[in-house]
């Protein structure tokens, strides 16, 4: 019992919370960037521009089918060989953005495709251009449907940030490892705390997502 109390000392908790803040920041920036990138890629794939859409589609499929861990490693250790260099945080954000925008691109495309065909045909016959139809008719409806999947991608990102311990990103999991490596009696309490903090963070996020989703539908 004493070990538990010691493990949750303010010093340890502050160290963990700082890591949690890193996790949240990295995940948040990545989700915003991948939302933008994913929208662009998804629309390009949807638009069926000769060659371009096909090439973008292939790229999306390749990235979607690779492990994020591999992409993180590759960004941090291999890209500098071709002159692209990031810090640890930069690499994590870059890798997660690349990975997530490929995931989101498919969600965006799925969202746009799911809007009934009649709507875009109607808009086009009323003289709206392709861009206008997309912007005023298709995307607003698609995004509404996309809120749940996007929130669940955000939750994934928060969990996936833990993979960046491999390149020593000082996020929550890495910091918990530092703590329990120095004091083996704190291994179990640290794992419990780690699980608790991730759970609270992600569960709250999912709930907020559900509330927003309900509001939008009503």
């Amino acid at each position, binding site marked *: 019992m004493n070990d538990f109390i010691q493990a949750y000392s303010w010093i340890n908790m502050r160290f963990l919370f700082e890591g949690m803040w890193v996790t949240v920041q990295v995940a948040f920036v990545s989700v915003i960037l991948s939302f933008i990138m994913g929208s662009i890629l998804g629309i390009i794939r949807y638009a069926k521009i000769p060659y371009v859409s096909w090439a973008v589609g292939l790229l999306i499929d390749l990235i979607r*089918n690779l*492990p994020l861990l591999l992409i993180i490693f590759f960004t941090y250790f291999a890209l500098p060989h071709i002159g692209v260099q990031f810090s640890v945080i930069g690499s994590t954000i870059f890798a997660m953005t690349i990975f997530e925008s490929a995931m989101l691109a498919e969600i965006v495309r799925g969202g746009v495709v799911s809007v009934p065909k009649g709507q875009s045909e109607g808009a086009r016959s009323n003289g709206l251009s392709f861009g206008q139809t997309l912007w005023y008719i298709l995307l607003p409806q698609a995004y509404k449907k996309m809120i749940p999947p996007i929130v669940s991608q955000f939750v994934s990102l928060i969990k996936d940030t833990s993979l960046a311990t491999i390149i020593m990103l000082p996020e929550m999991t890495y910091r918990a490892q530092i703590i329990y490596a120095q004091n083996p009696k704190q291994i179990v309490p640290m794992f419990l705390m780690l699980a608790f903090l991730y759970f609270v963070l992600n569960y709250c996020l999912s709930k907020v997502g559900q509330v927003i989703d309900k509001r939008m539908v009503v």
Partner: protein
Amino acid sequence: MMHLISMYGVDFLTGFGWTLLSSVIALVGSLILGTLFAIIEVIPRPVPHYIARLYIEVLRNIPLLVITMFFYIVVSGIFKINGFVSGTIGLTLYTSAFIAETVKAGIYAVPTGQYEGGRANGLSWWETMRMIVLPQAFKYVIPPLGNQFVNLVKNSSVLAFVAGFDLMYQANQISQTTFDTFNPYIIVGILYLVITLPISYYMRYLEDKLAREG
């Protein structure tokens, strides 16, 4: 690159084998566990419902790495399990939560009339579930299951953290022996794609077919 393949071809293939093995075991395991918890959740009683809910929500919201490390470092103190087993258990539990959600959605997608019909004909709850609802539910479940398998293969890279001999682990080992941080990861990336791309494309084909059939 050719040099790497001729020198370390065996290591790459070993990694490929362990990755595939871990993914297949975890797929079977998480399918069983996931279906089980989906059924428990739809039992019309509060206690089993909330137990299943708790199981699913906890595993879904914690990083796979944390679950795996927990088994590798904490649980292995009680039961002797190595990195590969720890990783595969972590992978199974983590994925089972997602599969439970998928199967549950499949169960709910079956029209309630079917369930009511079964009960009206004197079948018990379990018989209705087993003979009428589940077989239909699985029809909706197959395409998302394919995607879960792709996720499993990708997520199995977490074995690299616990010396699980998988593709990522081999890539790290080779890159550290050769000081080449580029080509080992390209080769391993291709090997991952060899497993995941065909499944992804086949699943997309199935989804399209299912959508066309309505």
